C-alpha cells in the first residue's frame, strides 16, 4: 500500500465521466436504480453456519465428519491446525527445547491450512468461518444505529496496533510457556462452547460484544485478533481477492461504510486511485459486503491472473 501511494493518482473523474452521467441520470437516481442485494452475504452466512453446525453435529450425533473445534480439527480424517496456535507452539518449543508436540499430523494440519487459505485469500477464514465474526457482524447493526441516533460516539484507533498485539501475544506465549491467547480467543471459546457445552467463559464474549456495541466498532476483529493477522500474512499475495474497476465507480464510498477494514478500500475515494484496476490487500476478509452494495458493480470477486484468460 505504501508503494502504491507513491504513484501519482489518476486525475479525478470529470462529471460527464461518472457512471450515472453515462446513463443520463442523476447520481441519486443511479444509486436508487439498483435494488438492495444480499447475495454474497447470504451465501457466506450459509457456509459459516453450515460448517459450525457440522462441528456441532459431528460430536452431538457422532457422525465424525468434522471433529474437534476451530483451534484444531479433523476433517474426514485429515488434521487441520489453527495457524496462530501452531506458531505459538513452535516458538514455545524453540525456548523450552521440547519439540514432541510438533508431530507429523501437526505439520500436515498446519500446511494444509497455509495452502488452502493462501489460495482462498487469507482472512477469508474470518468472514466465512469465524463464529465471532458472525456475532460481531450482527451486533454491529446495533452499534451503527446508536451512532446514527447520536447516543454514542465512534472511536477509531490506528490499524497498525494489531501487529503489536500479534507480536505481544507471541512474546507472552514464549515468556510464560503457555498458549496465553487461547484463553482469550473468542474463536476457540465460542467454538468449544458450541461443541462441548457453554461455560462461564462466555461472559468474556459478552464483554467484548458490549464493548464493540457501545464504544468502538468491530474492535476485536479490526485492532486485536492475532489469528486474523496470521491469516492476513498467509493471504498477502493470495490470488483470490476483490477487484476494483475505476471506470465503473461512482465514488459514493458506501462500500467503506460496510467494510470491516475500510483502509483496504482506500482507492474508492475520488482522486485517490492510481490505476484503473486495483485489488484489495491482505486485511480484506473477502466477505463480499462491498460487492453486494456496489451500485455500479465496480467491486467484484476475482482471481488474479485469470481475468485475462476469460
Amino acid at each position, binding site marked *: 500500500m505504501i508503494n502504491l501511494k507513491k504513484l501519482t493518482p489518476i486525475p479525478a473523474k470529470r462529471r460527464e465521466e461518472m457512471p450515472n452521467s453515462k446513463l443520463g441520470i442523476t447520481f441519486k437516481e443511479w444509486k436508487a436504480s439498483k435494488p438492495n442485494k444480499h447475495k454474497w452475504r447470504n451465501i457466506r452466512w450459509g457456509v459459516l453456519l453450515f460448517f459450525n453446525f457440522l462441528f456441532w453435529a459431528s*460430536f452431538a450425533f457422532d457422525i465424525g465428519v468434522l471433529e474437534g473445534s476451530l483451534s484444531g480439527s479433523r476433517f474426514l480424517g485429515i488434521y487441520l*491446525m*489453527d495457524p496462530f496456535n501452531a506458531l505459538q507452539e513452535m516458538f514455545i518449543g524453540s525456548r523450552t527445547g*521440547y519439540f514432541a508436540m510438533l508431530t507429523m499430523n*501437526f505439520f500436515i494440519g498446519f500446511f494444509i491450512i497455509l495452502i488452502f487459505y493462501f489460495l482462498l485469500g487469507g482472512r477469508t477464514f474470518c468472514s466465512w468461518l469465524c463464529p465471532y465474526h458472525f456475532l460481531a457482524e450482527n451486533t454491529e447493526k446495533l452499534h451503527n444505529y446508536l451512532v446514527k441516533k447520536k447516543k454514542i460516539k465512534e472511536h477509531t484507533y490506528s490499524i497498525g*496496533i494489531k501487529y503489536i498485539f500479534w507480536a505481544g501475544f507471541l512474546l*507472552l506465549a514464549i515468556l510464560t510457556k503457555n498458549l*496465553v491467547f*487461547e484463553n482469550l480467543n473468542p474463536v476457540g471459546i465460542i467454538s468449544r462452547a458450541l461443541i*462441548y457445552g457453554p461455560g462461564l467463559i462466555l461472559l468474556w464474549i459478552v464483554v467484548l460484544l458490549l464493548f464493540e456495541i457501545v464504544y468502538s466498532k468491530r474492535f476485536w476483529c479490526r485492532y486485536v485478533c492475532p489469528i486474523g493477522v496470521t491469516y492476513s500474512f498467509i493471504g498477502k499475495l493470495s490470488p483470490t481477492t476483490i477487484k476494483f474497476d475505476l471506470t465503473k465507480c461512482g465514488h459514493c464510498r458506501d462500500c467503506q461504510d460496510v467494510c470491516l477494514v475500510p483502509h483496504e478500500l482506500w482507492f474508492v475515494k475520488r482522486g485517490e486511485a492510481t490505476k484503473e484496476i486495483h485489488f484489495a490487500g491482505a486485511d480484506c476478509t473477502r466477505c463480499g459486503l462491498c460487492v453486494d452494495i456496489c451500485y455500479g458493480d465496480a467491486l467484484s470477486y476475482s482471481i488474479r491472473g485469470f481475468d485475462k484468460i476469460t
Partner: protein
Amino acid sequence: MKKSDSEINRRQFLKNGAFAVAAIGAVGVGVNYLRKLNEENALTLLRPPGAILEDEFIYACIKCGLCVQICPIEAVKLAGISDGLSYGTPYIDPLAQACDFSCDAMQCVETCPTAALDFIPFKKAGEDALVEYQKANPTPGPDYNPFIVQSQSMKATTKMGIAVIDHSTCLARNGKGFKGSPREDGFKGIYRSPNPKREERKASPVNDHIFNRELCDLCVTECPIGEIAIIMEEKIRGNGESIWRPMVLEGCTGCGVCVMVCPSTPSSIIIEKLEMI
C-alpha cells in the same frame, strides 16, 4: 496537507500502540498471577492416559477437544474457566466417570494432534509385547489375537497417577462386607466389568451390577488391570486376628475405576498424580 496527515497517523499509532503494549503487559501480569495460583490446581486435574508432564502439557495441548470426542464412555471432559489457565484442557474426574479402557486402543492418545497425550510409548509397548509373545509362543494357538496382546500391554503402560486408599473409611479394612449396587441412585457412570463370569464387550452402568460380598473387595475385582495393580492383602495383627485390606501395587495405572466403584461415601480411594508424590 499530506505530510500533516501522516504525522497525525504516526502520532495516533504511537498513542494507540502504547495502549496495546500496556494491554499486553496487563495480560502478562494476569497470566503470571494465574499461573502461580494455578500451579497447585492444575496438578490436581487428572489428565487422560498418556499425558506428558504438566509443565509441557499446558502448552502442548491446543484445546481442540479431539480426545473428548473420541472417548466412547465420555470420561474425558474439558476444564472450565474456574481452572484458570487450564481452561479448555482435558481432564478425567474418576468419581463421575473413570477411564475403564473400554476403547481398548488408547484412542484419545492416538487422536491427539500435538502429542500432549503421547502415543509413542504405547506404540512401543504394543510392539514389544507382540515380539515377546511370539518368543514365548513360537506356534500360537487358534485363539491367538495380536490385538488383545497389544491392547493389554498398552493398558499397563498407562500412568495417569496412582490410587491411594484411605484405610480409615475402607469397608474391607473395617471388616465389612457389601451388598447391592455400589453407587447412589441416579449415578450415571459406566464401565466394562473385567470379571470373566460376566464377560461383556460393552460398558454398562455401574449401578446395574449388583454385588454380594462377605468382605468388600470391589476395587480389586473390578480393576481393569488386574493383580499387577491391586490385590487383597492379609495382615495378622499382634492378637492373632487377621484383617484384609486392598493394597495398591506398582502396576496401578491411575485409571480410577476403583474410585468410581468404591461403595463408601465419599469414595475411600483417590487418584494422585505422580507429580504430587
